[in-house]
């Protein structure tokens, strides 16, 4: 079935299409909780393909089970911790994922501060932490020295409450950094903050501060339409809240070391030369464990992941709304083109390929370009568009069926209309050359009779006449072409194939003559008119059949010489004194089944040799409708 949508259908389709595209783009932009969770369920699987390992320069130094076995429950006494920390003096930097906010003894606190002072140590602060303290002058100076100042137009979260280490520990720290991280709407951690506002200053996150020191390059934060975190020429994309998407590695790929190692007698601090040490707690019961796309992650590894992403060039860029909106429109437009496929299974295959392709494109962009494509939005868009396509195709085919039904119910018996509707492929609309049998009938002397009787009487007579005549044609599977005044034109073998069309036409003609007898009885009873006689011409031959006419009015009909001849045969009935006259070609097809009599020859326009015509002796044949035989002997009426 060819898909030709009407203008209004097209407009409606385009409207819904744009609605889907805009709706998805808006959902992508604002990502309400459930949407983000659903989208991530798809894209989180990309991380499983991560082929990279974090830089070996990043060492995760963990207070783990072994360390607790050796030194007792965490937190340890600060001089004991200081003993281990003192062995980090050869490192490039130490990033502390811990805050020492409660004082112990001054001697212990000072010992720890002094141990941190041996290395370049980035200490942690919790913005809005559970134990906020009012910083003194020296701490404010340290916070100022830690703050970022190359900041333009960026929106960052913040607070004026902060949890800090005690001053004796702070005094040993090179600089400070925020330890805060925030999960996505579904409570999973995927994004890392660049920093937060505190006391009208911007404190960088632990990873950002450590990276500044390691690269010896100050960080810059640029807002606007394309927020970025820059380290010189190195740019890391941020979202509009100042977070960057982390590229997660499986935990086992991190270079990790138990804190217990530092206390082993033979430990050589030189093995950590130039390393970036992230110090955190993993021991069960103490640690902060975070849910990430790759499962449970020690909180400290979020900072380590950011560092490794930046150092290894594994940072990710998420597609921003304008780009994503464009991608959505393109993919949905391609989905809309699937409409051109006629077979349902082909369309289903195409939808499947598009969905697989969207997911695959997301995975490939992640692997080879560092771009993050939320393919769930495309997949949902493809499904919605597929539903749109399928429903409009369904309603279109329904409409098409209705059109067929109204177009043919006037000229075809209902059973034939059903056959056409059930299987429209059997019907060929438009012009078609085909051998058909055409039947013409006419009431003899009707024109002169119509002048002598009243108009309403005439209408009554025609009503009584056409009904049984048309039924006789329909019963033989004929198509009523048209009424022309008192004449009837009927086609056989069109629009549906009818192998015995010549015989069917002749049977219809016979049935019409029997119907004529019954009509006359009715007319006589009502005293309406004198007896009517109908002349019928039947001819078989090639003709062009189809919906012919203009766009204003068209009609299913047949044209051609054979049609003209059928009309001529009907006109000749009076002259030759026969009720039914059939042409040569029809005779050839029915002569074995029906009694016929040659009447002589007539010359026909368009034919070189004259045509032999035959009378169909209908009175020798029982009524095809009732099976009754004619009451009078055939010979008595002949002539």
């Amino acid at each position, binding site marked *: 079935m060819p898909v030709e949508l009407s203008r209004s259908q097209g407009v409606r389709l385009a409207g819904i299409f744009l609605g889907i595209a805009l709706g998805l783009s808006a959902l992508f932009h604002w990502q309400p909780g459930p949407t983000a969770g659903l989208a991530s369920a798809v894209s989180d699987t990309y991380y499983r393909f991560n082929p990279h390992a974090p830089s070996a320069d990043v060492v995760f130094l963990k207070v783990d089970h072994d360390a607790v076995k050796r030194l007792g429950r965490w937190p340890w006494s600060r001089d004991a911790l200081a003993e281990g920390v003192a062995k980090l003096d050869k490192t490039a930097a130490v990033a502390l994922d811990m805050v020492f906010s409660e004082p112990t003894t001054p001697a212990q606190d000072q010992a720890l501060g002094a141990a941190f002072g041996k290395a*370049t140590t980035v200490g942690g602060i919790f913005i809005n932490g559970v134990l906020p303290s009012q910083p003194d002058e020296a701490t*404010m*100076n*340290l*916070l*100022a*020295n*830690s*703050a970022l*100042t*190359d900041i*333009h*137009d960026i929106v960052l979260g913040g607070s004026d409450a902060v949890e800090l280490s005690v001053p004796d520990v702070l005094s040993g720290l*090179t*600089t400070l950094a925020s330890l805060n991280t925030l999960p996505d709407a579904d409570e999973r951690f995927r994004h890392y903050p660049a920093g937060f506002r505190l*006391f*009208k*200053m911007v404190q960088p996150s632990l990873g950002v501060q450590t990276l*500044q*020191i390691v690269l*010896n*390059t*100050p960080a810059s934060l640029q807002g606007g339409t394309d927020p970025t975190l820059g380290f010189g020429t190195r740019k890391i994309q941020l979202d509009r809240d100042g977070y960057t998407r982390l590229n997660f590695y499986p935990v086992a790929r991190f270079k990790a070391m138990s804190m217990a190692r530092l206390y082993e007698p033979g430990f050589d601090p030189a093995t950590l030369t130039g390393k970036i040490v992230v110090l955190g707690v993993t021991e069960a019961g103490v640690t902060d464990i975070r849910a990430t796309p790759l499962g449970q992650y020690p909180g400290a590894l979020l900072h380590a992941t950011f560092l490794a992403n930046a150092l290894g060039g594994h940072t990710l860029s998420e597609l921003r709304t304008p780009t994503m909106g464009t991608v959505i429109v393109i993919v949905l437009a391609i989905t809309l083109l699937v409409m051109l496929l006629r077979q349902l299974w082909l369309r289903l295959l195409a939808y499947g390929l598009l969905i697989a392709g969207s997911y695959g494109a997301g995975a490939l962009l992640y692997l080879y370009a560092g771009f993050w494509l939320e393919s769930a939005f495309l997949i949902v868009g493809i499904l919605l568009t597929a539903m749109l396509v399928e429903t409009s195709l369904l309603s279109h085919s329904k409409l098409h069926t209705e059109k067929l039904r109204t177009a043919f119910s006037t000229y075809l018996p209902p059973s034939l209309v059903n056959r056409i509707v059930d299987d429209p492929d059997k019907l060929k609309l438009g012009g078609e050359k085909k051998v058909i049998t055409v039947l013409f009938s006419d009431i003899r002397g009707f024109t002169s009779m119509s002048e002598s009787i009243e108009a309403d009487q005439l209408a009554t007579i025609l009503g009584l006449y056409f009904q049984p005549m048309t039924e006789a044609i329909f019963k033989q599977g004929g198509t009523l072409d048209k009424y022309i005044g008192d004449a009837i034109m009927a086609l056989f073998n069109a629009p549906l194939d009818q192998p015995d069309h010549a015989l069917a036409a002749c049977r219809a003609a016979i049935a019409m003559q029997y119907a004529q007898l019954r009509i006359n009885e009715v007319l006589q009873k009502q005293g309406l008119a004198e007896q009517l006689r109908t002349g019928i011409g039947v001819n078989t031959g090639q003709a062009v059949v189809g919906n012919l006419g203009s766009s204003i009015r068209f009609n299913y009909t047949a044209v051609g010489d054979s049609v003209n001849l059928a009309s001529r045969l009907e006109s000749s009935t009076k002259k030759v004194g026969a009720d039914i006259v059939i042409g040569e070609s029809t005779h050839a097809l029915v002569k074995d089944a029906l009694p016929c009599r040659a009447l002589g020859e007539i010359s026909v326009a368009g034919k070189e040799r004259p045509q032999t015509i035959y009378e169909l002796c209908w009175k020798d044949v029982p009524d095809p409708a009732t099976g009754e035989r004619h009451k009078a002997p055939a010979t008595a009426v002949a002539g």
Partner: protein
Amino acid sequence: VKKVAASAVLLASLASAAAVRAADCVPIAHVTNLEGQVSIKPAGKVVKRSAGKTPSPLCAGDEIHTFQGRALIKSDQDQITLDRDSVLLIKSQEHASVSRGKVLFDIQKRGTSTGLQVATRLSVIGVKGTSFLVADKGSGVSVALAEGVVDVASTQGQLGHYREKPAAAKEATFEDFKREGAAAVDKEKQAFAAYKDQVQREFVAYVENITMEAGTELEISGQTAVERKTGAELGSDLQALRTWRASR
């Protein structure tokens, strides 16, 4: 005894580190006065140090960051006052750059040298003895000239140079503002906003250099530079910094 000796060695090494740092560069200016948190980012370093006790020496390449504080810097010839939330880089005795906030320059006339060049995000200001305020407001950079003459050169190619004149007869100028006094600041700011709505902007030319006159301000944003009589906003900033400096 051993411990004491070790401490002594440590102290000695710390002292020598400080000595090395001091000898590392020749100070070209000093932070002579400050309030609140003022940090100095040494040349080539990332981690900032606090300005600490004044006078605090500044070397070529040092960056001064004020957060909620303010700082006064003096060199042989010049006085530079940093407002809150400002960043100033001292490249050399002849070159400075303002990348954030508001900075007031009071520059002595230099004999033979080319004077001081102050770079901003959008322009370079060349001065030989004058007093002016540079304000980076994010959207653009403004220069208000109190005394003397400065030459402002664009670093963004050609600028459309416009001159604003009040449509109303009375001009609300910086001089007016000074007479009004601090009590009328709010009223004056409203009046200034209304006045700004009435001004006529007149195109002068496309230029890369604009020479400013005392009592005017130049606002550069995008490819436009608008020159007008110093308005209340920059005027009050300038006055506030002068008042703060005088109180020190």
